[in-house]
């Protein structure tokens, strides 16, 4: 009997155990869901508040120990004096010099960390190049690699600092060290090339640019710098190719356009036999284009692959002012006859129908309209008689444009007023000097700067107070990218700046130290 009861109890116990396990498993499932929810929440970064950690253990102890060690060391030094380096011990001297140099460098770095200044050397991060890195199974070498990259970036920054302070040789050394640490970064050779260009070591600069291009075949600045190196060596054909490449990569790059123009002119004078029309004038084209687009329209320059793929279509545009002789053939849509023209419409007249047409070289060259507005102002070649007359009347009708709101307006206005120095003078004068930084933002082009400087030289020195000149010079120098613009100044421009600064110096209220700073900024 008791055995039977025992058997039954055992059975019940086994059943109970099985149920318990079953219950546990059920429970586990709900727990699992619950946990996963909490887990995801944690991964998202919710639900945990940051706590302030106590200090690291034994921190003061270590410092104390270090101090103590130093103390004992000092005492020893006191007894023995510093161990002299023997004259024949070259290795020790090498080490000593290296150490001293490093110390010197660090000192310099620490006391002259200048606030952010814009220069031509690249500040951009090399992050994009990091991404291409190959996954390597070998962890150690990967970390090493990472470290080297970091080192290279550090060197680059250091080099850029030197560059800003015009210590090109030191900058070159930094970049070289960076290149050793990370030979895959195209920024380093490109930056070194810039520094070499500054030192007029063109052949080396060219080699560096080629390296940079090898590393990143779509790096416009490398092409631009190589172009400069080539042109400085007189290898104009190659330079021309490089600048064209820059334009391909960065359509509308002002510097490239200017350089290309210069080179082509030079080529033109060299090969006088070549007919003028065969030589392309990208600069004039660009200028004309910007004249064509009206006042309210901002320049849009997109790389080829980003441009709209839709087929081009012709837009009907009201032609306001053009001579029917010109517009009749070219323009679709009706036009407004000349006698309807009012002076206030001056700025509307530029609105051409050519908006939708890509600024392709051929089309513009044939259009003839381009010549009308662009080349003519420069007293260009092959302009029709009628256009000449028209231009004259236009100039007479010219009214003073209002104060510009952005760099683009300023540029267009200045171009229009180019042949009227008095107007340019008045135009510039109406700009409040302190608003210059606002107007230019980040788009101070060297050309514009030089133009402004020329206007100021022609008129301000004679007509204006030295204080105003000073205010203009001062505010211009504060525009970002000013450093870059002055970098390309030639002796002509430097003379102009010098004359202006001399004029400014005659103002009694001007601080001499400020003036010195300005002179430095204008590289006078």
């Amino acid at each position, binding site marked *: 009997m008791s055995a039977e009861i025992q058997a039954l109890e055992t059975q019940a116990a086994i059943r109970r*155990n099985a149920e*318990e396990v079953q219950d546990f*498993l059920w429970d586990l499932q709900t727990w*699992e869901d619950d*946990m*996963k929810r909490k887990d995801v929440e*944690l991964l998202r*970064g919710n*639900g945990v508040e940051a706590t302030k950690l106590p200090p690291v253990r034994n921190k003061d102890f270590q410092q104390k120990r270090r101090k103590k060690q130093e103390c004992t060391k000092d005492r020893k030094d006191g007894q023995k004096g510093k161990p002299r380096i023997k004259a024949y011990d070259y290795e020790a001297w090498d080490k000593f010099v290296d150490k001293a140099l490093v110390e010197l460098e660090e000192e310099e770095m620490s006391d002259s960390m200048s606030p952010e200044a814009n220069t031509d050397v690249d500040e951009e991060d090399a992050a994009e190049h990091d991404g291409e890195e190959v996954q390597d199974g070998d962890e150690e070498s990967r970390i090493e690699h990472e470290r080297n990259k970091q080192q290279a970036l550090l060197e680059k920054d250091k080099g850029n600092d030197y560059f800003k302070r015009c210590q090109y040789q030191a900058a070159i050394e930094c970049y070289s060290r960076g290149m050793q640490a990370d030979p895959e970064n195209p920024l380093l050779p490109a930056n070194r090339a810039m520094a070499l260009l500054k030192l007029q070591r063109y052949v080396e600069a060219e080699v560096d640019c080629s390296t940079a291009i090898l590393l990143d075949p779509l790096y416009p600045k490398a092409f631009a710098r190589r172009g400069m190196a080539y042109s400085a060596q007189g290898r104009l054909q190659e330079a021309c190719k490089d600048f064209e490449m820059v334009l391909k990569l960065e359509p509308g790059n002002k510097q490239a356009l200017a350089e290309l123009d210069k080179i082509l002119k030079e080529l033109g004078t060299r090969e006088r036999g070549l007919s003028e029309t065969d030589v392309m004038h990208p600069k004039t084209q660009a200028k004309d284009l910007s004249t064509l687009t009206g006042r309210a329209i901002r320049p849009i320059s997109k790389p080829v692959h980003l441009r709209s793929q839709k087929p081009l279509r012709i837009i009907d545009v009201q032609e306001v002012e053009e001579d029917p002789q010109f517009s009749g053939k070219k323009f679709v849509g009706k036009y407004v006859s000349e006698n309807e023209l009012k002076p206030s419409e001056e700025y509307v007249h530029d609105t051409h129908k050519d908006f939708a047409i890509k600024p392709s070289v051929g089309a513009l060259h044939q259009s003839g309209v381009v010549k009308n507005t662009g080349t003519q102002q420069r007293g260009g070649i092959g302009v029709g008689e009628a256009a000449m007359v028209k231009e004259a009347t236009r100039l007479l009708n010219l009214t003073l444009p209002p104060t510009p709101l952005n760099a683009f307006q300023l540029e267009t206005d200045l171009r229009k007023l180019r042949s009227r120095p008095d107007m340019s003078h008045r135009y510039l004068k109406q700009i409040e000097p302190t608003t210059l930084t606002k107007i230019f933002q980040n788009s101070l082009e060297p050309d514009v700067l030089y133009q402004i400087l020329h206007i100021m030289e022609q008129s301000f020195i004679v007509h204006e107070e030295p204080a105003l000149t000073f205010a203009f010079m001062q505010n211009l120098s504060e525009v970002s990218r000013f450093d870059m613009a002055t970098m390309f100044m030639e002796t002509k421009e430097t003379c102009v700046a010098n004359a202006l600064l001399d004029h400014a110096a005659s103002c009694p209220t001007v601080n001499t130290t400020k003036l010195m700073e300005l002179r430095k900024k204008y590289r006078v």
Partner: protein
Amino acid sequence: MNMAALDKPQVVVHLHRSLDYTVFDCRWIPRSARLVCLGNRARGSGLLQLFELTRGELKLVKEVEKATPFKCGTFGAANLADRHLATGDFSGTLSVWNLEAPEVPVFSAKKHNEIINCIDGVGGLGIGEGAPELVTGSRDGTVKVWDPRQKNPVANMEPMEGETKRDCWTVAFGNAYNQQERCVCAGYDNGDIKLFDLRTMSLRWETNLKNGICSVEFDRKDINMNKLVATSLEGKFHVFDMRTQHPKKGFASVTEKAHKSTVWLTRHLPQNREIFATTGGAGTIHIWKYGYPPQRSRKDSNGDRMGVAGCVTLLQNVGVATQPISGFDWSPDKQGLCACTSFDQSVRVLIVTRLNTV
């Protein structure tokens, strides 16, 4: 079968997964249903695998291979926000990994000359007062305490010059009940157990158990030292009452024979610290319960206080593997859920029932 056996907690292998590498350690990721396994590939590289419990299945979520084999890992010093895993490897490098981005370690320092056998952490996950710290023990004979905010160890315990360097097999944190107090207990291959006081930076206590110490663990890290379990090579384990230290005799202890083979590990149940598991060289797991004596201390003839050891009772023993169980971890979030790894190249998820009623 007698009734007594049926009234005990049951240990059931819930999930079993074979692996293709030698696995040394496993850890539950806090506040998750995920599990990390660490080990050594046959080709000599280290492997870290992440498993997730999903509907009665152990799903491999992530796998990270590194140059050197991993020996041990802990989440003890991690905060809940990022749950970084600290590992020790064969080359003597301590690394801290962000498991979401395990390509590069968050922290890495190679200060041990030889393999790091053991690691423990405190101050993270809300367990233990004070700064998060890690401790590593290595074959080079040193025990180093780390603060992951600094590259150098904050404390380094090594044998005096001239002394033989013993292989440190196990380390554990304890006594972290306020910002200053903290202890590290280390066990060595010659049977030495040393208790280092990190506040006074001194050796507080040492003893020798004649056989190599495979594992030591405090019942809780975040209270005034209470109990310490130390397992040894020849199949015994000792439970020390750490509350009362006698000037001469040290701490009182009770010794129990178990497993008939090396006791590889001991782990306290986080939800009830009187219960702990030991794992054996024959692939067995024993669940124990410690019982306190009526009086935890008494005065000796000199009037010094000395501790009185309690007793341990075996709750359950079960064989789950054919090879030694090298890694064992209770889930901190679910009572009765645990995982173990063994040298038969497998990871198992076990459930232990009736732990709340014992």
